[in-house]
């Protein structure tokens, strides 16, 4: 019994399995990546510049905001500072996932962190809750598949950008929100039934915090502040 269990676990944690577990999120990466390429070209970036942003910055929302700031001729320092704040939530994502990988080398850990996204975080955290452990090959399969797909999609979007002026009419931009809804539902799946009420209470609090804070700070700052506040309330109010 033990042998078959560990075999099953190994089979579930190959690079290929990681790539397979990434597939459901690829539609999201592709549609948002294409949209970014189109927006990038519309913001007077060259195809090479679009590809470089995807390759090096590798952060959907930050890339869109960079384009928006470039269009209004914002200074370099303002763009970099905004990008930093928009992506600061990754600190929380990394902090949540990192404890699963402490047995691996520093270099491998840098690799996991470098390619971490909202989506790969969502998929990995679900898998971690499911099997209690996460493996290097699986994580790399997940991360690298997403990364390659993102860079290619952004570049293709830029190539086709000159012909498509309004990608929104296809509803593709909603892929991101739909993905976060599904990841949230999957996350709640793993919550024990006696704690579900508490989690739903936190979700309601999050909605209240997000909307109220958005009146006073930019929404990406609201994401950070609400998450920190409500997770703290979660600790205080849990039994």
């Amino acid at each position, binding site marked *: 019994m033990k042998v078959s269990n560990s075999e099953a676990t190994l089979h579930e944690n190959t690079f290929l399995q990681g790539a397979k577990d990434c597939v459901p999120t690829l539609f999201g990466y592709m549609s948002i990546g294409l949209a970014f390429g189109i927006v990038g070209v519309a913001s007077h970036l060259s195809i090479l510049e679009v590809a470089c942003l995807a390759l090096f910055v590798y952060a959907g929302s930050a890339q869109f905001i960079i384009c928006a700031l470039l269009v209004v001729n914002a200074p370099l320092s303002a763009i970099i500072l905004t990008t*930093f704040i928009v992506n600061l939530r990754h600190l929380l994502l990394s902090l949540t996932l990192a404890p699963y*990988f402490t047995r691996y080398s520093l270099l491998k850990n840098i690799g996991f962190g470098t390619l971490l996204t909202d989506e790969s975080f969502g998929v990995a955290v679900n898998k971690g809750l499911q099997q209690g452990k996460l493996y290097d090959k699986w994580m790399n399969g997940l991360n690298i598949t997403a990364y390659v797909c993102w860079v290619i999609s952004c570049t293709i979007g830029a190539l086709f950008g000159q012909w498509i002026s309004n990608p929104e009419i*296809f509803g593709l931009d909603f*892929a991101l929100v739909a993905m976060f*809804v*599904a990841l949230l539902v999957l996350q709640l799946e793993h919550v024990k039934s006696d704690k579900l009420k508490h989690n739903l209470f936190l979700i309601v609090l*999050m909605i209240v915090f997000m909307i109220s804070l958005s009146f006073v700070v930019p929404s990406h700052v609201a*994401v950070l502040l609400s998450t920190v506040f409500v997770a703290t309330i979660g600790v205080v109010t849990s039994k």
Partner: protein
Amino acid sequence: MTISLFMIWLLIGCTLVTWVPRVLPFMFVRNIQLPKVVVKWLSFIPVCILTALVIEGLIIETDDAITIDWQVLLVLIPTLFIALKTKSLSITVIGGVIFMALIRFFT
């Protein structure tokens, strides 16, 4: 195929500020045992941040006010239903996009 000098500095700066927050926890959590209360705090992060990202998608920011994107709100209902019913990432995303395309087509 061009890239401006401004763009090169922008790329270097933005790469650094997006890379460091992603990697730092992976570098330091290896050497320290996180206190129980921190582990508990972290366990609430996924649900909180995923909710935040959904709500962020609902908000349209204008100069000094915010409005709710009613199209997104409307499509969110069947999308949530599909997610609860199928528990599938792909079906939820494709379903949501189709609903959104339909709403935009008919309004």
